[in-house]
């Protein structure tokens, strides 16, 4: 009797551990997918904003995208987990001038190489977030010209 019960106990414990581990194995990639979906959704704003912001604002001194190596760093709430816990991330923005821009616009171009005085900027937004101890970065780059 005791032998059978002990065997049953051992078997149940083994089943319990296996089931628990398989549940964890199932949940880990789902947690990853949630982060992917929420961060993908959030970074679509960065792209849309970079495409839509007026050239005047984008190139002004108070531009949301300062000239590299300057950058703006903002902590943002990108979404919420089931239950309402906030998911935080950091957005870093900077912009890089095209080499052929005139010096006044951050480049090395001259009136000979750039007779139309074209101004081109690469707007970069980087969204960084942590899952456990690992940090991830998602980036979007938009080219603006005038």
């Amino acid at each position, binding site marked *: 009797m005791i032998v059978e019960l*002990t065997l049953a106990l051992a078997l149940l414990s083994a089943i319990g551990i296996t089931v628990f581990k398989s549940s964890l194995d199932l949940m880990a990639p789902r947690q990853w997918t949630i982060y992917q979906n929420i961060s993908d959704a*959030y970074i679509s704003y960065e792209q*849309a904003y970079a495409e839509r912001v007026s050239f005047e604002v984008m190139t002004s001194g108070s531009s949301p995208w300062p000239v590299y190596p300057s950058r703006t760093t903002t902590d943002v709430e990108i979404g919420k987990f089931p239950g309402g816990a906030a998911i935080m991330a950091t957005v870093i923005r900077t912009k890089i001038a095209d080499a052929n821009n005139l010096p006044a616009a951050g480049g090395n171009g001259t009136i000979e190489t750039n007779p139309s005085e074209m101004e081109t900027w690469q707007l970069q937004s980087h969204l960084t977030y942590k899952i456990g101890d690992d940090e991830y970065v998602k980036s979007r780059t938009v080219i603006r010209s005038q």
Partner: protein
Amino acid sequence: MTVAIVVGLMVAGISLTLFNSQLASYRILKAQNFLISEAPQVNNTLNRIVSRANFFRMYTGMNDAISSENAVIENGKILALMFQGTDDNSQSFAVISFDEGNSRLDYYQVNSMAELAVASPSWNISNSIKDATFYVENGVLRIKLVGPNDEEIIYSSSTLR
């Protein structure tokens, strides 16, 4: 005998714990479903529709949408999108409306906003949304969806330029 009873109780206890942990896992997996499967599909649908529109307006209520009055740029519950045809006079409207009573996000296709008064939804985009809010931030249309377990995801989109 005592040993047998103790071991028996342990077997029963572990069985119960096993059952409870399975139930808890099921609840967690179910709670994650909105963000994993429903929200990306809603985003895909909204992006395909919004990106083809010429311009949009948003309203807080159906009556304002029907009369095309009192458009807002925050806390919108109804998003009206206008599609301009090749002919200057050919316009059609798509309306995405959050029905709070039924927790549904519905899509209407109409030729004029006034038609909304008698129109039935052409599609149901989602029926597991607790709240949907449309607003504009820095010229970008943002759509905040709240799922059945208070999860939240914010999409951004822009119309044709």
